[in-house]
């Protein structure tokens, strides 16, 4: 699955310029699903990235695991979900030395949450690279109840916490790693526009 190209939007809508090797510096790599292909491409570009790499992978139903393990990074871990590897990821960030590079690849939900964690841990923004691959589902925060709904693929969608029907904004918070969802029928309760698939 190739890199995703997003349509032009407002300036907070994140774009993911793609992974470029920074050589054999200490590196944390985190990918989910089709994001594995971005890691494979990165390693093909420059094998030395793996020399001091800690690679974490969330397969999400894909079978890229063995090929990633075969890249022979210094540390390799498969995890069933981001939540499951969060503490390990945080430990890696806390242990990181100056100059450590963070490579993120896969879905927006993963990239957004991992970026927020990394910034909160004090990693400079220019040490974080990202590449979007795979499905274009979004991680949305309900502005009303503040609950996060993962893997949103339609606009509007129903908040998985409070049940309000929300429209999908492009306004994005790096601190929360989420887009903003706002009640779509606030002015005319019950009048919900037709549900559409989200486009890139």
């Amino acid at each position, binding site marked *: 699955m190739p890199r995703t190209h997003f349509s032009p939007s*407002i300036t907070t809508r994140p774009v993911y310029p793609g992974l470029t090797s920074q050589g054999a510096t200490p590196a944390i790599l985190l990918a989910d699903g089709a994001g594995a292909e971005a890691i494979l491409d990165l390693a093909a570009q420059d094998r030395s990235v793996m020399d001091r790499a800690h690679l974490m992978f969330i397969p999400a139903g894909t079978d890229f695991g063995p090929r990633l393990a075969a890249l022979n990074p210094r540390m390799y871990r498969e995890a069933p979900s981001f939540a499951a590897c969060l503490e390990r990821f945080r430990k890696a960030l806390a242990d990181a030395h100056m100059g450590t590079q963070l490579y993120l690849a896969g879905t927006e939900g993963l990239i957004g949450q991992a970026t927020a964690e990394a910034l909160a841990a004090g990693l400079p923004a220019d040490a974080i690279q990202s590449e979007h691959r795979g499905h274009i589902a979004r991680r949305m925060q309900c502005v*009303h109840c503040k609950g996060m709904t993962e893997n949103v693929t339609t606009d509007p969608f129903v908040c998985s916490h409070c049940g309000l029907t929300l429209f999908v904004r492009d306004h994005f918070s790096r601190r929360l790693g989420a887009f903003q969802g706002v009640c779509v029928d606030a002015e005319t309760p019950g009048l919900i526009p037709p549900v559409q698939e989200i486009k890139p």
Partner: protein
Amino acid sequence: MTLQFHDETFRDDYTFHNSPEGIRRFPFPFDQDSYMYSVNLEPHAGGRAGSPFEKRFDVDEHYVAEMRDREITLRDDPLRCQSLPHMELAGWDFLELVMVSKSEDYPDLFELHRDGDRWHWINRPLGIEQRFTFLDATTLPCGPLEYITRQTQGDHALLDQREGNLWMDAGMITSQADWSLDFDIGMNFFEWHAPVPKANEMGVFQRALKFLLNLQQGAPTRRLNWTMTVNPRLDTSPENYHKWGPEKRTITPATVGSKQYLRVELQTLWRLPRSNAIAFPIRCYLCSLEDIVTVPKWGRRLHRVLRDLPDELAEYKGFAVNRPVIVDYLEQFDDGAETSPGIFPD
């Protein structure tokens, strides 16, 4: 002039009202018969006597009721006031600025006595008397930003300056024109303005940021911004949009004069001395259309501005759905006569 503080509400039964003097001093935001975005900054160095520009922090007849409304909003949602950990010093800077300004500008309402870092603050309208140690947060009932902004009309954002940008890292936001502090906290100048249409392409934000990064202590600056609100509601937050949204559809030719309000923000910007942050008070003034048209110049001009406003702006400001009714109503107050330059009544 002795201020008579109104006993009034900004929700439910909406008893908010402007006195005749309140209408005359309303900061009408249009200095000509048309409107487009601009940086429109000018020094905040006083202004016409009796106007909202005269004092550093304007205190008007709505002060006590607005602070009561803020308390209701905060009880319901404490996340309307947040401060990232590195912003406490800026909070103290702002507390000092407000206490010093108010006690000097309104000595009959506010008093500040300082003996080194031992301060004694008296706020007569709200019946508050507080002795505390400056820069020691344990001597106040809450953080310095929350403490002083529970006593100061308007929303207040504190902007940290680093990396050649401004970062919205603290704020007290309870009367916002539909934006969320909880979502936007931590964003830089371009990020929190990202949803504004057109202005970005016009370079407005680039120029405004360049100016603000060089803002000097003792030289505050100001601008006016505006939108339209149905009912005199301060809490038009996105958090509660599903609660107040239906009110927006209650405008009819019979109700538009009394229920449709012009909402004006007097925005001021202040460099703070210790933290080098910028304080950004956003003071909200409300005036119903039927009160606005009692000033003939304003009735004529508002009709022309709203009639000719680009659709995109009416949409962004959230009143596109009511614009036809508003413009029809205002038309009867526009006899086509020329209007004088500037914002003040003739």
